[in-house]
């Protein structure tokens, strides 16, 4: 028996669920297929909505170091259009949270006014911080410099042994799993269908179009396909003879036991790690950026490093229990920008991948623009810079 649907979305992470939700909202009939693969980025992620911090390379200080080397003195290691994209997406969280709460009763724990603090330990970091403040301060009015005293007044557990911090008031956090679950259920509430443990195995193509998707749970005839399989999306594309340069980028996380809510008020980022307390009380300490295979093991040395980095920033964490460690696979691209929109090779095959280290904050807008693109509408935000064809010469 063959099922029929307008659009098959492959991958039930934050991105695929958001695309399915946006499509369903437009009245398209959608089927979302997923398997729970260990290492899926959404489940592993920290859930930071650091639209500015991340696009400036400060979401995780480890990145800053590499960014500094590559980008010289420039404060923005990633193109401005991308920063605007994340900014726009981030602005959607408050209304999205309200909509999802009404629609499916899930609180996605989108916090307002937590803010991201980039802790500045030494002179070199301070010089860089000053440049960022000069550059962005006037423009977005969304970056402030904080003194150690100011930091202490707000978050007394943060070390006094620093020179100050940059505060990004708009960079908050969300619970990535609840966000995804809510988007999924929201999509279903709007008529979409979700099939769990349906591994996509093959595509049936004819005349330059995909006509059906074959999965472990049956074959589905469809009008279009969205590839949102995260780090695995190159494998999915390959099933349709499409090459995209997506590779897994491992990130390891150390998670503590639940602490009293409000133990840490800000999201923190340092040159060693980032640190944020989730609504449930656990503190998440991340992360590494490793170009690797699909292995999701954690490494002893990296865990020790993350722990030491966290204690440097918040000494009292020394006495807190480590509850668990894990690793996830970010869908990485060579230029660190997502791959969104139509494939070059097949007319009705669309990408929604390459979320890399900002796939959670990017999820709302990614869903909207990819849905628009699938439905033949003009996306509200131009996806020109994110089209797969920019890699034509690379993969040819």
């Amino acid at each position: 028996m063959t099922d029929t649907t307008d659009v098959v979305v492959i991958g039930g992470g934050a991105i695929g669920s958001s695309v399915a939700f946006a499509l369903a909202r437009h009245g398209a009939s959608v089927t979302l297929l997923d398997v729970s693969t260990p290492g899926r980025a959404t489940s592993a992620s920290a859930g930071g909505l650091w639209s500015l911090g991340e696009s400036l390379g400060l979401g995780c200080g480890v990145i800053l170091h590499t960014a500094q080397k590559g980008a010289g003195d420039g404060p923005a290691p990633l193109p401005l259009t991308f920063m605007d994209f994340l900014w726009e997406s981030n602005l959607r969280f408050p209304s999205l949270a309200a909509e999802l709460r009404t629609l499916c009763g899930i609180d996605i724990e989108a916090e307002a006014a937590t803010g991201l603090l980039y802790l500045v330990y030494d002179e070199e970091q301070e010089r860089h911080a000053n440049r960022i403040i000069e550059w962005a301060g006037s423009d977005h009015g969304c970056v402030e410099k904080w003194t150690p005293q100011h930091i202490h007044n707000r978050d007394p557990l943060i070390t006094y042994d620093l020179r100050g911090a940059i505060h990004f008031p708009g960079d908050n956090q969300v619970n990535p799993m609840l966000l995804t679950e809510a988007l999924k259920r929201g999509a279903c509430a709007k008529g979409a269908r979700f099939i769990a443990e349906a591994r996509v195995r093959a595509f049936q193509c004819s005349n330059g179009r995909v006509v059906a998707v074959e999965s472990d749970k049956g074959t589905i005839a469809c009008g279009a396909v969205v590839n949102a399989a995260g780090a695995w999306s190159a494998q999915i594309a390959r099933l349709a003879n499409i090459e995209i340069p997506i590779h897994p980028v491992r990130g390891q996380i150390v998670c503590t036991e639940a602490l009293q809510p409000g133990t840490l008020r800000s999201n923190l980022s340092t040159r060693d790690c980032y640190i944020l307390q989730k609504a449930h009380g656990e503190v998440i300490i991340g992360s590494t950026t490793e170009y690797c295979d699909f292995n999701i093991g954690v490494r002893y040395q990296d865990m020790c490093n993350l722990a030491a980095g966290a204690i440097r920033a918040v000494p009292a964490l020394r006495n807190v229990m480590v509850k668990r460690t894990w690793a996830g696979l970010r869908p990485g691209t060579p230029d660190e920008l997502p791959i969104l929109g139509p494939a070059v090779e097949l007319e009705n095959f669309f990408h929604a991948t390459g979320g890399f280290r900002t796939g959670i904050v990017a999820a709302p807008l990614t869903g909207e623009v990819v849905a628009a693109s699938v439905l033949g509408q003009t996306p509200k935000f131009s996806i020109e810079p994110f089209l797969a064809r920019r890699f034509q010469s690379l993969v040819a």
Partner: protein
Amino acid sequence: MHNDVRTMEIEFTLDGQTVCCPEGLTVAGAMFHLGRRSVRMTARTAAPRSLFCGIGVCCDCLMQIDERASIRACMTLVQPGMRVVSGQGAATVALEA
């Protein structure tokens, strides 16, 4: 069951009060000895918990011991002067002096 050995009493603090128990007791054992079987309140429903598996697997018996947030009371011997605090919900951390 008891030998004729005279055992030492050990002094430690429990929730700020000085208490005593014979040597060679785990913190969980000392709690039972003191007639306080509940060792903590849970975070979500504020329900009392006590010793359960006894061998360090279930993590029901977590207590704050010498400033460390959550130590297994069944796997830790009472030491003289130890500071034991029964948990009240999610763990707390103290500012470093």
